């Protein structure tokens, strides 16, 4: 499972991509992924919002994740 990071999220984890290679440790849902992230990087708690995209669509907390999904961490957007 591969997770992409952008903007301040990339700065927080220090990488634009993290591979969850351990099958056991893979979060099963968006909510679980967020929980894991916050546990490992408490800085995420300080953000105004934290969204997740699955296959380039915004995904609710209850969306389940599979190994083939393209998953991205979306910190507060600030285009324009």
């Amino acid at each position, binding site marked *: 499972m591969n997770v*992409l990071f*952008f*903007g*301040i999220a990339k*700065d927080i984890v220090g990488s634009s991509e993290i591979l969850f290679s351990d099958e056991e440790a893979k979060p099963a849902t968006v909510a679980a992924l967020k929980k894991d992230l916050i546990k490992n990087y408490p800085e995420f708690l*300080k*953000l*105004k919002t934290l969204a997740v*995209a699955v296959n*380039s*669509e*915004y995904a609710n907390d209850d969306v389940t994740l599979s190994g083939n999904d393209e998953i*991205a961490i*979306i*910190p*507060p*957007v*600030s*285009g*324009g």
Partner: protein
Amino acid sequence: MKIVVEIVDVIDTAKVYTELNHVESGGICVFVGTVREFTNQEQVIALEFETYRDMALKEMEKIADTAIEKWNLNKVVLRHAVGEKGVAEPVVIVGASSAHRDACFEACRFLIDTLKETVPIWKKEKFKNKSVWVSAHP
């Protein structure tokens, strides 16, 4: 093509009217966002934009589709720049073309407001001694 949705390195403001021109349109409204020199009295050296490109293009298309349906537009443009932009450079251009002016004004405002809310693009303000991801923190 009714819709032009793009993420580019440099925005060419001169061509947007050609893109929005339409024989059934009497009004074209365009908004351009540019880099201001000062933000809260602090001098900005540059803005740096990055994007999650595939998703950004999808979200921009959704915004265009919604606007076309709501305001019966003839043409829509949403174009955002990425990379480093200096003071007074354009960073975003959106526009709508419609039979009458009410529709294109309202639609154009919707385009830029919604783009700022939903499209995965991130802006870093670069000052002399620091850089800040805009709107990241409460």
